[in-house]
C-alpha cells in the first residue's frame, strides 16, 4: 500500500508540474503583450514599464516561470484586473457557493443514481428496467442549462416554491434556510450525472452477478436480497467509487453553465464573467485551482479504491 500510494502521489505531482507549465504560458499565449493583458488596454506606458520591472518580465522566461511558481506556492496568484484585489481572495469569495453546490449535487447523485441503478439491475430486462435505462440515457443527453431554465420556470415562476436565482451566504441572514437557493441548481446539475451513475451501477451489478462467487452464494442458500446487497452491491460499488473522480470533473464543467443560469455567485460564474471582462489572472487562477482539486480528488479515488479492493495492481 505504501509504495502504491507513493507512486500514485508522485505521478499526480508530475502531472501537476507539467500542467502548471501550460497554465503559466496561458497568459503568454493570449494575443498581445502580456503586460497590456495584465493591466488592461487602458494602461499607460509608464504603468507598463513599472509593472515590467516589478514582475520581472525583463528576466528570462524560464526564470519567470519559477518566480511565478514560487509566488503560487506562497498563495499569491496575482491581482485581479477587474476587482483590483488578490486573485486568491476573489476565488475564495466564490468558493462557498461552489463547494456547497457540488456537495449537495453529490448527495443527489448518490441518493438517486445508486438505488435506482440497483432496482434496474434487480429487474434486469423487465419493462421497468427498460424505462429507467431509457430515462437515464435521455437525462444524460439533455443540456444541464436547459433543465435549469425549465426548473426555474416551473418551480420559481409558476409555482413560486423556490427562489429563481442568486444565493445569499449561509453565514448571512437566513442561515441554513438559504440553502433553498441551491435546491434547483443542484437538481439541474445532478440530473445528467445521476443518470450516468445509474447506468454504471446497473451495468456493474449485472457484471458482478455473473461471477462464480455469486453462484456459490446463491447455491449455499443465502437469501436473494442478502446476496444482492452484501455480495453483488458491495462489489459493484467499486466501479461506482472509481467513477467519482470522473463525475467530479463533469460537475466542474457543468457548474460553470449552471451557476450562470441561476446567477449563483460561485467560481463557475466567476470564470465566465472573467472571460468576458478579460480578467486573465483570475481565469488563470481558477484553472490552476481546479486542476489541483481535480488531481487531488482523482488521487483520493485511486487510493481509496486500492483500500477497498486490494486486488488492484500497480499499472
Amino acid at each position, binding site marked *: 500500500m505504501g509504495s502504491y500510494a507513493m507512486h500514485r502521489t508522485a505521478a499526480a505531482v508530475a502531472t501537476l508540474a*507539467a500542467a502548471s507549465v501550460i497554465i503559466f504560458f*496561458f497568459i503568454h499565449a493570449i494575443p498581445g503583450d502580456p503586460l497590456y493583458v495584465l493591466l488592461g488596454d487602458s494602461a499607460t506606458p509608464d504603468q507598463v514599464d513599472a509593472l515590467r520591472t516589478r514582475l520581472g518580465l525583463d528576466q528570462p522566461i524560464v526564470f519567470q516561470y519559477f518566480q511565478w511558481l514560487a509566488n503560487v506556492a506562497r498563495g499569491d496568484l496575482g491581482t485581479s484586473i477587474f476587482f483590483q484585489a488578490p486573485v486568491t481572495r476573489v476565488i475564495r469569495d466564490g468558493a462557498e457557493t461552489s463547494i456547497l453546490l457540488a456537495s449537495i449535487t453529490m448527495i443527489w447523485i448518490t441518493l438517486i443514481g445508486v438505488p435506482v441503478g440497483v432496482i434496474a439491475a434487480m429487474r434486469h430486462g423487465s419493462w421497468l428496467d427498460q424505462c429507467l435505462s431509457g430515462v437515464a440515457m435521455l437525462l444524460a443527453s*439533455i443540456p444541464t442549462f436547459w433543465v435549469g431554465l425549465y426548473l426555474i420556470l416551473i418551480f420559481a*415562476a409558476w409555482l413560486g416554491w423556490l427562489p429563481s436565482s442568486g444565493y445569499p451566504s449561509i453565514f448571512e441572514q437566513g442561515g441554513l434556510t438559504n440553502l433553498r437557493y441551491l435546491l434547483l441548481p443542484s437538481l439541474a446539475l445532478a440530473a445528467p450525472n445521476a443518470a450516468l451513475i445509474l447506468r454504471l451501477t446497473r451495468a456493474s451489478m449485472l457484471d458482478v452477478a455473473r461471477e462464480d462467487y455469486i453462484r456459490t452464494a446463491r447455491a449455499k442458500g443465502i437469501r436473494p436480497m442478502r446476496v444482492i446487497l452484501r455480495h453483488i452491491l458491495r462489489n459493484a460499488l467499486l466501479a461506482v467509487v472509481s467513477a467519482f473522480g470522473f463525475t467530479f*470533473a463533469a460537475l466542474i464543467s457543468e457548474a460553470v453553465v449552471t451557476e450562470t443560469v441561476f446567477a449563483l455567485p460561485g467560481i463557475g460564474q466567476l470564470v465566465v464573467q472573467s*472571460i468576458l471582462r478579460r480578467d486573465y489572472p483570475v481565469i488563470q487562477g481558477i484553472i490552476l485551482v481546479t486542476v489541483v482539486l481535480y488531481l487531488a480528488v482523482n488521487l483520493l479515488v485511486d487510493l481509496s479504491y486500492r483500500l477497498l479492493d486490494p486486488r488492484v495492481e500497480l499499472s
Partner: protein
Amino acid sequence: MIAATRSFLVPFIRRPVAAAGLGILVCMTAAAILAPILAPYDPSKIEPISRLLPPNAAHWFGTDQFGRDILSRVIYGARLALLIGVGVVSFALITGVPAGVLSALYPRFGRVMMRLIDVLMSFPALLLALGLIVILGRGVSNAILAIGVVYLTTTSRITYGLTLRLRTETYVEAANSMGAGALWTIRKHVLPNLVSPLLVQASFVFAFAQLSAASLDFLGLGAPPEIPSWGNMLAEGRIFITRAPWLLFFPGFAIAITAFSLNLVGDALRDRLDPRFRNMLNGNRR
C-alpha cells in the same frame, strides 16, 4: 461493401429504439442539407409585428423576440450542429488515432505522448475548452478546435489501449514472427480492427460535442450571435422564458434529441463489439 453495410445495420434491426435514433439522425442530416427548401421562412428575417407569438398555423414553433420564425431557425440550426459534430469528430480522429497507434507501437514515443495526454486530461473538459477560446477567440472554427482538443485526449487514449490489446493477438504475433514490418502490421491488422470501436467512439464524441458546443454558445463564447445555432437561440431567449416558454423548448429539444439519438446509436453499436473491447470505450467526459 454491401456486407459491411449489412453488418452495420444488424444491431438496429434487432433494436427498434436504436433504429429510431438512427432515423432521427438521418432526418437531422436531411434538414441540415435541405434547410433552404424545408424552412418556411428566412431564419434571420426580423418582423417586429409578430414578436413572441406562441405556436400557431403560420409559425408552427412560434416566433422569437424579433419576430423570427423558430421552426426555420431550428432547421437552420441543424446545419451548425452537423458542422460542429463532423468537425469535432474529424479533428479528434485525425489527431487522436495516429497519436494512439504510434504510442502503442513505439513505447518510447508512447510514454511521452501518453503523459502529455494525461496532462491535458487533468483539465476539466469545459474549462480546457474555455481556456482555448480565450486564446483563440470566439467563432465556429475555434469552438470546433477547442472542443476537438478535449476529445482528442480520450480518442487517443482509447486507440492506444485498443492497439496495445491488438498487438498481443496471436495473428499479429504470428505476422511479426514472420518478419512483418510495423507499417504493414498497422495497415493490415491494427487499422481494420480499430474501425468498429472507433465508430462507437465517434458517435459518443459527436453527442458530447453537441452538448459542449451548446454550452459554449449559451455562455456567449461559441458561434457568433448572428448564426442561428440551437445554443444561441437558448442564450437569446433566456430572459423571455416566463413570457414565452415555447421559445426555449424547441431548440433545447433539438439538442437533446440529437444527443440522445447519437447515444442510442453508439450504445447499439457498442453492444455488438467484441466484449474485450467494450469496456475500453467508457472513458469519455463532459
